[in-house]
């Protein structure tokens, strides 16, 4: 009950190693002050209960010395706690100048990580991680071990929060400006990355991993990703990694939060305002980039817009993939 592992996950972040001891000290301070207050209370409760006949003469109504003591001591303890917390905080939050920069963009229910020096972009969500683990790539945000990392975060729509419990790091990402989170992983392994600021329906699904890998594995990951990026983009992987699979079904079932895409090509869809539209290429393209324009009847306007998130060729690959979902339209251009 009283060792750090019971309360906190193992701390990997070398910039925040003071926090575990600080937490345990505060646990001890709390337990002691609990005893200091509840102990006498329970003892007096029994000793002075009504049935006891005991010396109750001249109960003191105030005692200046005692009152000053029990004001000064808590103040001293609290100011001590503040300074320990503040100094730990400033060490933990200001990234070193030589830190490796990674851009994190939070969006409705998945993360996108850009490695500016290496020029590659990686999408991280539950589905995307499964894809990557299948073909042997470390899932989620891939980070070399023992190098200070600076995460520059921003959000594409609402406030999310970049939270890695193992690194004791948490920073909200905001739509209108960049915020900075920093850590330096000391032990290889994969650790959970949660979104800690409520961001809508699948807030609890916006989970991915942080894989801390050795330097060589990181270099190999970078090379594989960069030659991956000049390979022709396959619509299916874009569909799975950028969160479409989370809401749209690709097989002829009616489930899912968004409309089913099986057999969509060429179908006439009735929209919320009772107008109808033929599901052709620019309807699909427009519904991806600006979903709020044409909402299919029976569905609530919840799809996040992807304008600026998908590159031009990713968009084309996606539209082709959706077209191929309709079997009878195999040959149609």
């Amino acid at each position, binding site marked *: 009950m009283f060792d750090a592992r019971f309360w906190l996950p193992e701390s990997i972040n070398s910039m925040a190693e003071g926090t575990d001891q600080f*937490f345990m000290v505060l646990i001890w301070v709390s337990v002691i002050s*609990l005893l200091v207050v509840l102990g006498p209370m329970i003892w007096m409760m029994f000793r002075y209960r009504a049935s006891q006949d005991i010396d109750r003469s001249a109960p003191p*109504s105030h005692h200046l010395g005692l009152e000053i003591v029990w004001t000064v001591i808590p103040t001293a303890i609290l100011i001590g706690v503040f300074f320990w917390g503040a100094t730990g905080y400033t060490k933990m939050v200001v990234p070193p100048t030589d830190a490796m920069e990674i851009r994190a963009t939070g969006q409705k229910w998945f993360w996108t990580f850009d490695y500016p020096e290496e020029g590659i972009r990686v999408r991280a969500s539950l589905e995307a991680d499964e894809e990557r683990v299948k073909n042997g790539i470390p899932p989620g945000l891939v980070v070399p071990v023992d190098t200070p990392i600076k995460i520059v975060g921003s959000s594409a729509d609402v406030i999310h929060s970049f939270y890695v419990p193992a690194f004791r790091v948490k920073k909200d990402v905001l739509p209108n400006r960049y915020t900075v989170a920093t850590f330096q992983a000391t032990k290889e392994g994969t650790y959970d990355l949660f979104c800690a600021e409520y961001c809508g*329906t699948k807030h609890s699904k916006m989970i991915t991993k942080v894989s801390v890998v050795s330097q060589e594995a990181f270099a190999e990951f970078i090379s594989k990703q960069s030659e991956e990026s000049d390979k022709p983009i396959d619509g299916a992987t874009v569909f799975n990694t950028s969160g479409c699979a989370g809401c749209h079904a690709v097989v002829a079932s009616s489930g899912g939060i968004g409309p089913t895409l099986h057999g969509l090509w060429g179908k006439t869809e009735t929209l919320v305002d009772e107008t109808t539209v033929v599901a052709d290429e620019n309807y699909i393209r427009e519904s991806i980039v600006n979903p709020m324009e044409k909402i299919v009847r029976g569905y609530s306007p919840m799809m996040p817009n992807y304008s600026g998130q998908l590159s031009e060729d990713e968009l084309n690959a996606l539209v082709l993939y959706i077209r191929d979902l309709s079997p009878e339209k195999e040959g149609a251009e």
Partner: protein
Amino acid sequence: MSDNSHTDAHNEPDYLRASTGIKSWLFSVDHKRIGVMYLIATTLFMMLGGLMALGIRLELFTASGDLIDADTYNRLFTLHGSVMVFLVIIPAAPAVIGNFVLPLMLGAKDVAFPRLNLASFHIYMIGAIFLIASMILGSFDTGWTFYTPYSSTTNGPVAWALTGVFILGFSSILTGLNFIVTIHKMRAPGMTWFRMPLLLWSLYATSAVQLLATPVLAITVLLLFLERLVGIGIFDPSLGGDPILFQHFFWFYSHPAVYIMILPAFGIISELVSVHSQRKIFGYKGIALSSISIAIVGSLVWGHHMFTSGQSIYANLVFSFLTFFVAIPTAIKVFSWVATLYRGNIQITPPMMYVFTFMALFMIGGLTGVTLGALSLDVHLHDTYFVVAHFHYVMMGGGILAYIAGLHHWWPKIFGRMYPQKLARITSITVFLSFNLTFFPMFIVGSRGMPRRYYEYVESFTWLNQLATVGAFFLGTSLFVTLGYLIWGAIRGPAADNNPWGALSLEWHTSSPPIEHNFHGQPTVDAGPYDYPEESSGTDSSSQWVPA
């Protein structure tokens, strides 16, 4: 109601029987009736909020969300938050206990503006109707904190809820205004400021906070309403608006709001500790002035809710530094209460049992608050279940349990009948145990990293959440038992005499339930409210009131 009417010496009917019929209740300007109506309303809303809490805990029994879908879960916890904060805990202690007891303690016939008092009850009901309407219309899923840009872009009846909160704010402002003027202008002759019972000091501080913080909530809700309706762009990031500014606006109200919730609880506990240990309170001036200093310092610290939300490092340091000053007045109060027990003649009555549970739970809540105030820990602990456990310990363990203790203390005065005391003692123990079973696992699961407002969680947290769910159902049942025997006591309990606990303050010197205009003639006060003579046997001691 049994027929042995409770008329007192001048055989005037008491306020319950003075006039009958629903209209006489709904439009009565008698502060006691308005207090009872608030009691009924807040209890109903507390049951509603409690059921939602059980729904949430049931969903979290299993790691993967299978009972209800994510969207309904989000709406459920948003409603649980909003109903509990705006409809139950902010009005409960000041409006129910305050409305009923304040004029009696002052020796006044009624509050300063009785029609305004009735108006604030009706405003409260209209606001509640709006909030419940938003629930019926499919409810909103923004969390009770309405953070933009999510709350300004999501669909759903957010506008209804915002109007509801806007109207509820006014009910709280008007009650605060009424109490301050009553305390200033209508004290019994001879009752100087330092001869007032401590509950009035804390109600005075609460009303000051209600008056000075709630308008900022009103303007925030109005701006958010305009943002959704007309899109004036104040909080809209694409137009240059800053979501952090909304958080500043919101928390400038909401942190003082948690002091609105806890200050009356402090007042009730100071009252009960002194009465049930038949002893002068220790450090009267210390406790009275600490209430006022909490009201002032309480509005300096709201930034500790936003340590990880992109607030600047400088502001984090300033707010963390100020947060630790708020803990000191609370510490003074707690130490003074324990010191009051020394050499007291402690009666282990149900209210006193609830006082002990309050002391234990509130201490745990307060100390974890200090842990959350330290900057380097808050980075890890913010928006996790550690925070959820902290504020439930402080608000439910502190605020609501003290409110229940107050109800047990003044129940004989409100209804003139006594509830079964043995059963009450047992339930107070089950409430304490089931409370710890529910919320202590949340501390552990929170510090291990389970974020807040999660519909599904990682497998490793499962058994702790299951423990919490089981605890939640025990807590629910024991609270229902409390409600049951209190209602039974009010209707069929044995008649209670005017001063069952041997207290000295003025409200115990009139019949219980009191007559329509409280006192025959104007009571005058010549001594403090807690001047129990040394060797008192606890009953007919020298009273604070010199009979007319």
